[in-house]
């Protein structure tokens, strides 16, 4: 037992010191914006925690940051929408809880790509439940649905 502690503790300390920027924040807003819109050269604020991504004067889409409660604590996430109101990308910016971090898996988040305000966005139908992260997956899905309802609708 003690040898186990001797082996892992220095590694843990070293890891914690050498990369403090990781912390529990996985992505900053700036980094997530660049990931979502690599060709954008300008992010124009469009209201509270909402940005329009532009290349020159061409509109590439909208970038929205929001949070939902997971099991107990906030999950910060970002949604990138294309100009027609479809989801281009969803990223988890910050996840604070001890359980349920599986919502950060790229494969799970990729399910949102292409969704629009007319998609059902229901866990268990078009979005998979994550066993062990039931509440987190449920609430992130509700969050994306909320953003699409607010920003993703089209004029008929």
């Amino acid at each position, binding site marked *: 037992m003690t040898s186990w502690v001797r082996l892992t503790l220095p590694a843990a300390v070293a890891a914690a010191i050498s990369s403090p920027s990781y912390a529990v924040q996985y992505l900053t807003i700036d980094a997530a914006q660049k990931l979502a819109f690599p060709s954008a050269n300008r992010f124009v604020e469009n209201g509270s925690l909402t940005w329009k991504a532009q290349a020159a004067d061409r509109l590439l889409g909208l970038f929205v940051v*929001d949070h939902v409660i997971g099991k107990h604590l906030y999950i910060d996430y970002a949604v990138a929408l294309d100009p027609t109101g479809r989801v281009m990308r969803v990223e988890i910016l910050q996840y604070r809880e001890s359980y349920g971090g599986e919502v950060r898996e790229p494969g799970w988040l990729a399910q949102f790509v292409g969704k629009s305000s007319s998609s059902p966005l229901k866990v268990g139908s078009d979005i998979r439940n994550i066993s062990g992260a039931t509440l987190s997956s449920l609430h992130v899905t509700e969050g994306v649905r909320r953003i699409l309802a607010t920003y993703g609708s089209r004029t008929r």
Partner: protein
Amino acid sequence: MSCHRRCVSTSTPSLASTGRRLAALMTATALSAGLAHAQEVGNGRDKSNAAASGDVALLRKLEQMEQRIRVLESQLKQKDNQEIARARGQAPVPPADGKPAKDRRDGDDPTQPKQPKDQKGLAGMLKPDWATPVPRDLTGKTAPVNRPNSIIGLVDSPVTGMSIGAYGEMKFGLQQNPAAGGQWQNGFDAHRLVLLPTYLITPNIIFNAEIEFEHGGSAFDADDKLHGSAEIEQIWIDFKMIDQFNWRAPGIDLIPIGYINEHHEPTAFYSVNRPEIYHGLIPSTWKAPATSVYGRLTDGLYYTLQASSSFEDFGGDFDKRTDGNAVPPFPTGYPAGITGVDALGLGRPVVGDFRQLSNDIAVTGQLSYSPPMLPGFNGSVSAYYTPNTTPRGAYADAGLPLGRSSLTMFDAEFRYRVPNTGVEARGEYVFVSFGNPANLRANNDTDSTNNVGKTMYGYSGELAYHLPLGNFLSTDWELVPFYRYSFLNTQTGGFAGSDLNAPTGAGQTQFHTAGVAVFPSPQIVLKATWQKVINRDPAGANSDSVLGGVGFFF
């Protein structure tokens, strides 16, 4: 207000009677009065003779003022809409398209996105509202509205970062009582109510606990007829360092073995009672004094490594331990913690008062995997090892002391929800091996029927189907019929020790479990379960049941 605006603007084109109009404008603007009132006042001042040139300049100024008031009004309206949207927890409405508030107001829910209704042409028609140019939001970048978390979903927490969740289950119905010769008896159990306080001390340091009330209370009170427990099921502080490495400080924690031991909320399984493997083979809820490290290794792969207080082969009450933290002295005798009948159900270590019966530390490792190439699949393998389960002062009923015996447990399980269908499959296998069965109390307690072999094992397979029931009471209901087969063998043979060996066959049990779980929302479940239990005891298992249950988790 609209009357005011109208009466003012209708008077502007005419230049016939400058003085009267000017007086009317001034009065109307200052007092927000109606047309009739304005004209009345104006008539009263009909004879005033202001200089014509000064009038024109003043008129222009007034027109500018009026314009300014309109702009301010529209900005105020926008701000109000944003406040409303924010108060409802929605993202703010994008600022308007520069038109006066009056034009955007009619019939619009302020929380709903605005559609540009004119001036945008075809391009505007094809784009969502935010894609059209809007004036910059004067409020600028604002931080997220940091509402405090809730107390069991009812009221906002007075402490930012503090929240209290809850889960619980109620059970009722008919079951055979093996202690009454298999008589069917009707009953009810407020099995558990668990409160889950969480406190975000800093973004990287998190406090978690589970406070559990079992069987309806904790007092021994003839009047209230309570006979339950209140216990701290979990309490620990997590230090979140990096994605790959986090530390859970010493506390009471769950042994990370299998799936249901850690995720035992009633919404995580479909039967009224927990799956049979967790009734003793894995002694759920298996908690222990423990510390652990955990993290993410790569996409979908997570690990946990835990050190915990060892499992103990002692099935007696807390107060039966001596002050020397040993079993009651010979020849009092004591019940075993590991038996062929209850498996490991009685030997969980104590969590209080420095009353552990050995110095031994167990280690548990778990790998959980959700392969990116197989969406919907989750699985885990875990192993538990303790070098010794024999408590201090252990002895056989013949008086001979009992030596050490290790315990190794291995578990593999999966859950697979086939994407885009309602089909779900689960499977689990668990295997327990004892280092030296001759030193187990059950094999030396002069009870010839509860003996323990070299190993124990169990497996189960489950099929479930998720059927949407549609929207009712403003929520989407789901019906989940399921069937599960479990086989447990807790008396495999190869018995050792000083006892005679006459197992009844009660240790080899099959369970057929079928039922439905109705989820009004993912946080609530209503269950009905039928269970048939078959074992090799000639007297029969006498443990069939038809149970209903209500569970919640939020």
